[in-house]
């Protein structure tokens, strides 16, 4: 079995979970926070989604003359609670088994989003090395597992 590792982040939103959920699937929304010149120095060539289980997406951008196509397949679509999709860069990591799961919980203020990116460990080929206090590292481990 290939080793995998989870990266988890979470964030509270002041809007209903439906609004946050839809922002992940609607190309118009994706172009406001995920891709595009408002996000980083890049041009959007296309943002295509096929929001059904088994449907695919392709987010093609150009950065410094280089075309980068973020591709994946929707594995679970349970509006507005849970969205799971595979996540890869075409030509670099097509079948590496990286998946992103988004879980939304309604709160009195809006909702809480919890994102889990499950990565195969072999992606770690080029991680730069720095030395850090071991306490920080073990704290991170607590959070990650």
């Amino acid at each position, binding site marked *: 079995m290939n080793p995998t590792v989870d990266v988890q982040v979470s*964030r509270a939103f002041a809007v209903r979970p439906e*609004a946050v959920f839809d922002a992940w699937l609607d190309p118009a929304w994706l172009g406001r926070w995920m891709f595009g010149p408002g996000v980083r120095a890049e041009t959007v060539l296309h943002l295509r989604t096929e929001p059904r289980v088994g449907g695919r997406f392709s987010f093609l951008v150009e950065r410094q003359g280089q075309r980068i196509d973020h591709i994946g397949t929707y594995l679970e679509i349970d509006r507005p609670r849970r969205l799971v999709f595979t996540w890869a860069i075409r030509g670099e990591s097509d079948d590496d088994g990286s998946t992103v799961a988004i879980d939304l919980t309604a709160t009195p203020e809006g909702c809480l989003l919890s994102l889990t990116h499950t990565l195969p460990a072999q992606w770690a080929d080029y991680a730069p*090395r720095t030395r850090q206090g071991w306490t920080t590292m073990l704290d991170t481990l607590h959070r990650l597992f």
Partner: protein
Amino acid sequence: MVEYSPAQLDSLFHALSDHTRRRMLRSLGGEARSVGELAAPFQISLAAASKHIKVLERAGLVTRTVQGRTHLCRLQPEALAAGQDWLRFYEQFWNERLHALAEALADTPVSPPPASPPARRKTP
């Protein structure tokens, strides 16, 4: 910049993929411990504990020194740095994206959350 070999990172994440081994690492956070001390919290034999420790040694997370009849294990925290750096990249990526999403949503009038009685927060 020093780069890690895929084999190194594979063995690191393999070592960290087991609950018992992660707990062993945590108990080594403060001080060196004997194999017996590391095995004590678990219902496992010394032989099984030793197997786990070998996996941690292979990943460079633990070194073992022999003092008489006692094998003392020490944490080698710098081995974690490789995994940490790699994970931090993704953590930062998603945190930035979620921040941008929150800002985009705040800029757009959307229907407010349904009215509900204020929830009482449990105090820890």
